[in-house]
């Protein structure tokens, strides 16, 4: 088990290092001088040179890369060019919205996707199954920004149950904050839940054809008991892989949906920072997103090992 863990951790670190290099290089070759943007069009060449020196833009690329990595390891993500505050303080604020948003959306995805998928599989080719498949096909086809607008129209404008956008923060209590995240999370989760329902369904149907399911039936277990006690755990293996990938999708999707609901999350920040050539912030966000995706994949690997004893063994 410890070898399995060590291998996975090493992969995780390598992935992060590689993505940091890619981020750095891409922003390096991107046109646009942050000092010029900061100074505006009126700045003199002398002022520009001074500012460039002050921002550390004149050092060689390799030196800047390593000092950036080194500083991040100590928790220093640099200073925002545009806001003049530490990048981390900006990120922290936005993470408090985007991470809960993605988590709520993931919880909804898992709940609807798994329940509907298993329910449909248990009724393979009967009306309930066909209905779920039809609905999920619809769910997959809906673009989430359009669905977000429809949700606002129905629940905020027509029914007035939720506000059309904005975020009150967590100071007024967790309930208020979650309420503001509910519609955006629903908009995000719909497509992913539909995808997950289909994958869960086909995975459960596949497993129900397996020999060991027949063995379980031959013991005298009813169909339902076989599904819950024997099939489900085996069926979860591909499902969990997909859920790990979906978390990344949700983080990316959040960037769009935050715009529709005017939520001050990572999505808004990344848009503004790119527009402002606020490269320190952009780099910080991308690395953070990469970290979250890699961390989720790590968690998925751990779950695999818990579900399937064979994986642990083959890796040790």
């Amino acid at each position, binding site marked *: 088990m410890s070898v399995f863990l060590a291998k996975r951790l090493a992969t995780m670190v390598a992935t992060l290092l590689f993505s940091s290099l890619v981020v750095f290089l891409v922003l390096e070759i991107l046109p646009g001088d942050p000092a010029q943007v900061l100074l505006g069009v009126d700045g003199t060449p002398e002022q520009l040179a001074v500012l460039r020196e002050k921002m550390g833009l004149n050092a060689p690329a390799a030196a800047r890369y390593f000092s950036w990595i080194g500083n991040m390891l100590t928790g220093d993500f640099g200073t925002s060019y545009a806001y003049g505050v530490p990048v981390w303080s900006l990120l922290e604020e936005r993470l408090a919205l985007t991470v809960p948003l993605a988590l709520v959306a993931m919880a909804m995805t898992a709940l609807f996707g798994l329940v509907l998928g298993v329910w449909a599989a248990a009724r393979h080719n009967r009306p309930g199954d066909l209905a779920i498949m039809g609905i999920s096909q619809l769910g997959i086809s809906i673009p989430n920004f359009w669905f977000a607008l429809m949700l606002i129209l129905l629940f905020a404008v027509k029914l007035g149950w939720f506000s059309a956008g904005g975020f009150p923060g967590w100071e007024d209590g967790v309930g208020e904050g979650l309420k503001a995240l509910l519609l955006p999370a629903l908009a995000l989760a719909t497509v992913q839940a539909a995808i997950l329902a289909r994958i869960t369904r086909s995975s459960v149907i596949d497993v129900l054809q397996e020999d060991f399911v027949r063995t379980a039936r*031959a013991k005298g277990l009813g169909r339902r008991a076989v599904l819950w006690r024997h099939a489900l755990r085996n069926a979860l293996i591909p499902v969990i892989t997909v859920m790990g990938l979906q978390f990344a999708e949700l983080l990316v999707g959040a960037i769009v949906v935050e715009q529709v609901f005017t939520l001050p999350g990572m999505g808004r920040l990344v848009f503004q920072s790119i527009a402002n050539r606020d490269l320190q912030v952009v780099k910080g966000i991308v690395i953070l997103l990469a970290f979250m995706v890699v961390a989720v994949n790590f968690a998925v690997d751990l779950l695999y090992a818990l579900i399937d004893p064979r994986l642990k063994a083959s890796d040790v």
Partner: protein
Amino acid sequence: MAEVLLSVRNLRVDLPGPGGPLPALRGIDFEIARGGTLGLVGESGSGKSMTALALMGLLPEGAKLSGSIRFEGRELVGLPESALCDLRGNRIAMTFQEPMTALNPVQPIGRQVAESMMLHRGFSRAVAEDEAVRLLDRVGLPDPRRRLASYPYQLSGGQRQRVMIALALGCAPALLIADEPTTALDATIQGQVLALLRELVEERGMALLLISHDLNAVAAAATDVAVMYGGAIVERGPATSVFRAPAHPYAKGLIAALPALEPERLAGAPRARLQAIPGSVPDLAGFGPGCTFADRCAWVIGACRAAPPPLVPVSPGHSAACIRLGDLS
């Protein structure tokens, strides 16, 4: 003769096919006495496993079952699912061919063996696992207490087949159906598993339906034999009689196709040519209304294709389904 445990009459199974129902079992009859062993032999596709699944009430979805299965005096055809669940794993148990895939890969074997006892006997997990240790010990799994926590992938093929057998024995069934118990195993292990099955039949008074395409396995363990071809029983009788004097052309061919270890051949005499039955089993849609073996039979005449031949006695307890028996001998 001992009391009849299982009596199957005119058992038919039709599977849904693209051009209408396909007959997988064409009205078969056989009996098993309490404590007796019937070997069911035939090539793959002959309906052996379909017979077992019909007895278990585990036919594939859409299959149509008719005829009669009387087990311990009770009619099983038409029994509701809940009543069948009470019987399965309890009075009738079954082991499956490929023990690697027939055991749940993500569950320790102790739980898998204990499960039927918890279900039918109401045992607690602790009691059922103690019982599982006894059973695993009985089927010859070394160090059974420690093995409870093992997963199927950690066992050898022979050990897995032993676990399958222990799993089936949990509730002391009156009938054990063993579907190809030796097919996936090495030759040396095959003999051990067959010997184990024979011992268990003896000591528990349990009846055994031994399904195998391996005639040697059946000859080693069965008291009676039924030979299947194309969803029909073409010959049945006491094992000694059927193996010594097969009557049906298919059974003759099957037994002649067995490579025998004859002493003179070992001594360096020229090898006799292995005999094979020409052709192969057609799929279910390929059978006409008459004898299912007609297309591969060297003695076929027009009348063979007209109607299914009935089983006619050839010696005491031994009968064959062929209208040309008189011309063959």
